């Protein structure tokens, strides 16, 4: 059975999700990958405010392909999450970030932080960027547009198919 959830994600929604659950996510999510993570992390280290409020929000690790005319976005599948691992615990601790979407394993440190701060890690299907683009209805640049595909975008998604890969109890589907 597929569980339908909407952003922003409350603590109650997080605790209701279990590793292995299939989810369809609707609402607003934010994109960020390598270079944007580095910038957000540096701001947190300096104690400076972030250009985006991540409280109860979802970060999607993606660098989308350009949109064709009349379309909100191009192909937009997940990138490898492990590259974001050095930055994730700080984001969870200091911003109230609730969920991440990506592909592949996370480090033990990230899993511990997911458990400590009551977050969740969703796996999207890597290599299904064209299919995932069909769920993205709107895409607006928020900041860091100089980074091209690595800028932070606000996406409006409908029924984005995901799998709970690491739940709020720290249970992981990866071996």
């Amino acid at each position: 059975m597929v569980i339908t959830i909407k952003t922003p994600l409350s603590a109650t929604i997080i605790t209701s999700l279990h590793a292995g659950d299939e989810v369809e996510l609707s609402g607003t999510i934010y994109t960020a990958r390598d270079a944007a993570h580095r910038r957000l992390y540096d701001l947190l280290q300096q104690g400076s405010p972030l250009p985006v409020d991540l409280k109860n929000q979802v970060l999607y690790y993606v660098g989308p392909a350009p949109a064709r005319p009349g379309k909100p976005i191009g192909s937009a599948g997940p990138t490898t999450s492990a590259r974001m691992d050095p930055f994730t615990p700080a984001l969870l601790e200091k911003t109230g970030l609730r969920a991440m979407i990506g592909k592949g394993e996370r480090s033990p440190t990230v899993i511990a932080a997911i458990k400590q701060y009551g977050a969740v890690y969703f796996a999207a299907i890597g290599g299904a960027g064209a299919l995932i683009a069909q769920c993205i209805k709107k895409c607006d640049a928020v900041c860091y547009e100089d980074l091209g595909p690595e800028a932070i975008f606000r996406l409006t998604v409908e029924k984005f198919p995901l799998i709970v890969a690491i739940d709020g109890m720290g249970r992981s589907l990866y071996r």
Partner: protein
Amino acid sequence: MKTIPFISVVNAVSELCLQAAFYLPADVVQGLKRALETESSARARGILEKLLANAAVAREQKLALCQDCGTAIFFVELGAQVRVADGLLAEAINAGVRQGYEKGYLRKSIVADPLYNRCNTGDNTPAVIHFLPVAGEALTITLVPKGGGSENMSGLRMLTPSQGEQGVIDFVVGAVERAGGKPCPPLIVGVGLGGTAEQAMLLAKKALLRPLAQPHPQKEYAALENALFARVNATGIGPQGLGGDTTALAVKIERAPCHIASLPVAVNLSCHATRHATVVL
């Protein structure tokens, strides 16, 4: 001597970029369908179905199969009786990449410097080009756009000859296990054996180009491909690393003679979206 105009190369390469980005090769589609029949995990079957649906959407809407439209890697066979008029072949190839990635709304993923100036070049150039001089009047250009996530999981080990077949098996299976879900399994596992360090790596990349259903022509290597395929799929990593029988769609080996002291083994993993396209001019 046959002369090919610069612009013909540019246009042909531009078209290759679109072909490779939008159309999943038929042998990979077949491989996914075959895996769907044998896969025992329901979750894994669900993922394989979505990958097939993705290929259909990409084809119909001319949308990149994956947002990572890759480093543009070329294997170029240049006939001895061919020349390009009005410019250098490498420049024509780069101009074709520039044109194709813009025209196809493909993501530009190349930064100018690996360490100090990670500034996007904005047009996905420079391409990585491997030239091979051959006899004849043909110019054959093969494009392999390769995503960063799977390329990051590459590995090279300079084994000693005494480590032999078992050493090769241990290294290849270990590389797949370490990669886990990161390179977007189901994978095509390219293995390069022999040569030197850099040649082994190139062989591993070339191995990805052999059609999925075509085994190595040499009996021992075909058997080793089968053994590795069984071992890799026995890891249980499965599609996207979320468990299942389908960690790889195929394992392909290319080999070359090597030094008496050496047994180089290179692994180059490709995600299921093993894209490639070839044109003969």
